[in-house]
């Protein structure tokens, strides 16, 4: 004979124990266990979940990798759990489809495919990272999902990109989004003659447009590659610069220009330093400003007060830089100290475009 509630109450001394005893046994699905390929793993996870819910009407429990908590469905305690599981399963199905059809999709694209479910793009990004971590993959590109391109690139020489036997090219004399690259991609410069080749990285898109405009209107004496990450750079822009660094040794001058504020310094450091993954840094870059001292020579520049956020960022950066082994860290240190002491910041737009060609 089956036990009745009275028996359970006798066996369990606390409310918590009683609740545990009354729960129906759940099926545990390990997202962390890798079986053959990513495709197979996802397939088995999806079929396990489908079987439990559709055929056995059995609660399921997902064990995720890293520090993520296990997910329960249905869950009495966590009202968000259902949404989380829906997001996880939908993403797994999307990845499965992408891998199966050998199609590459962007995070933004996935988010817009079901805005009601995902609510914001950050959530998609978060769950994709969780999946990547659970499968012990190095990056999201192994799921055929890439971040939307943000960085822009203009070059006076064509660049060929070779990724896993796929060929693509960056056309010369046109401004394009930086093409998707993988960590094993190869870059080659075409039509390279022995003239000087300079690379300029800019924080602001507006200044980038101004420079590209100037270049396309009149021929400049030497070849140039201009790159902008539009503010804080994404991984792709940084990977692109890193690839140029290793495949285009003919680039003679590497300069980076940012706003004269603590965020500008932080952005420059994002390009130049990366302790976690050396593939996303470009240590040949030289910080060339824009510095407050340069702007102070122009009498018509508008200087803004540092905000509280700027001040705390500057203090944090100063603290970090003093421990840094980067050879140019003392230059950043001096510039940050001056920004703080003058309580001022200024934008790089104020400076004349010829300045950027001067090096």
């Amino acid at each position, binding site marked *: 004979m089956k036990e009745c509630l009275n028996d359970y109450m006798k066996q369990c001394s606390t409310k918590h124990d009683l609740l545990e005893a009354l729960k129906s046994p759940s099926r545990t699905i390990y997202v962390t266990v890798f079986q053959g390929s990513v495709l197979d793993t996802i397939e088995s996870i999806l079929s396990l979940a489908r079987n439990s819910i559709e055929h056995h009407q059995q609660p399921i429990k997902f064990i995720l990798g890293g520090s993520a908590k296990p997910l329960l469905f249905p869950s009495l305690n966590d009202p968000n759990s259902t949404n989380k599981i829906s997001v996880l399963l939908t993403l797994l199905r999307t990845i499965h489809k992408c891998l199966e059809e050998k199609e590459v999709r962007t995070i933004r694209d996935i988010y817009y495919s079901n805005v009601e479910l995902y609510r914001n793009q950050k959530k998609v990004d978060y769950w994709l990272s969780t999946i990547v971590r659970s499968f012990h993959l190095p990056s999201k590109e192994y799921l055929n999902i890439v971040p939307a391109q943000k960085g822009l690139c203009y070059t006076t020489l064509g660049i060929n990109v070779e990724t896993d036997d796929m060929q693509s090219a960056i056309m010369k004399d046109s401004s394009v989004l930086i093409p998707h690259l993988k960590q094993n991609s190869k870059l080659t410069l075409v039509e390279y003659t022995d003239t000087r080749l300079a690379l300029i990285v800019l924080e602001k898109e507006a200044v980038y447009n101004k420079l590209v405009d100037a270049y396309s209107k009149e021929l400049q004496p030497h070849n140039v590659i201009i790159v902008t990450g539009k503010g804080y750079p994404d991984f792709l822009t940084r990977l692109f610069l890193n690839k140029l660094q290793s495949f285009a040794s003919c680039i003679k001058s590497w300069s980076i220009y940012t706003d004269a504020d603590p965020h500008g310094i932080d952005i420059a450091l994002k390009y130049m330093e990366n302790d976690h993954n050396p593939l996303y840094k470009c240590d040949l870059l030289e910080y060339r400003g824009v510095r407050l001292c340069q702007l102070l020579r122009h009498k018509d520049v*508008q200087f803004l007060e540092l905000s509280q956020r700027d001040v705390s960022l500057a203090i944090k950066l100063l603290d970090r830089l003093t421990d840094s082994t980067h050879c140019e860290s003392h230059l950043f*240190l001096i510039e940050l*100290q001056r920004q703080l002491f003058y309580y001022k910041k200024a934008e790089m737009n104020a400076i004349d475009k010829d300045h950027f060609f001067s090096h």
Partner: protein
Amino acid sequence: MSNVFISTANCGKAHDADIFGLSVCNPYTVTCSGDGSIKLWKNNLLDNELPRNNYIRQFVHKTGVHHVEVFHSVERGGNELCIIACVSFSGHIFFYNVDIESGDLNELNLLSPKEDKKSYWAIKWYKSDDSNICHRFAATDVKGSTYVWRFHPFEEELDEEQAQKEKMKREAKARRNGEYVPDKDAEIDSTFRSATVRPHLMLDAEIPAQKPAFATCIDISSSGLIATGFSNGNVVISQLRTLRPIHNFEAFGIQGIEQNSNTVRDVKFSPLGTILAVASDSGSYGCVTMYETEYGERIGSLTVPTHSNQATIGAFAHSGWVFGLSFNSTGEFLASCGYDSKVRVWDVKSRERVSTLNITASDIEEEQEILLEDEHGDSLKFPPVMAVKFINKGVRKGMGSDTNEGLCCVCMDRSVRWFREAGGA
């Protein structure tokens, strides 16, 4: 009338990075720098001695030091105290006790762990000449609050309110009896003779910011006022005893034009506390405005004549930001320094310029100490002057210094320069 200042000593490449602060006390001229250290330059140099060989270096903090203030006083019982306070870019205040005889520096822990957590910016010592009033220490933080501490040099604390009450009682009694009652100072003095020296700070209170803004500078007057300048252009004067704001000088508040940034860079009270001089920005130019402190009236600005009559707000004192102000001991003259690599001395009464010192990097005596450009390759041929201080008569030793006042300034070419008023010996 014009006053002429002549260079008496200088030292190039005094620090490894920009020098941001300067403070002068009797034994030392103290500088602080972005290289994270402070240097105490001996004031009493013999004829053949150079500043380069006569300084004490103390490393403070790796992020750099931007403000330094020295408290030097001979306390009751003949106890000579010299305490240096300095602020690092990380927002911490460091205190050092200087043994004048040996030149040794000992770090002091004067702030409580809770007080130590704030991000401080500007600091100021106030040395009280009245035995019934405590010395004070004040600091501003990056969020705009001003903190005031009472400084007690001895184990026994002076109860300022009680001392005031007793003094008033004594005076009332004296008035009633129509006789003179001698001050009890002598008596107190004897009790303090046996007192143990233990410098410590007691937090008095905080003057909260009216609006969140960077509190850039601070000064305390002998008449019991405390002024805080803000990066948004405001200046607040409060009473030191009650810490209640009594005057509020607002900036023009004009935005969106080049003259928008009226950040206050320095505030200084005249020695008697009747005038407050305020250095603020106007675009990339610098202004100095003077206010009378009793009723908070604006007296006027210090301006150099320009050839343009179209500059309506443009009453400039320097054609660069003004970083420092300093009154001389009598309050007759005010020195200002700025990004235009000039030090100007003004007659306070007539508000006229009496002297201008043009600083160039090549002034430095030792050729190998001249720094013509910084690490970024920016020219320092005309180095901005970061701070200026008047030096009282008799502080710097040497010819003419007993009868004439001097000036000291630090510049962006990492130099320290000392000057003395010419003539009148």
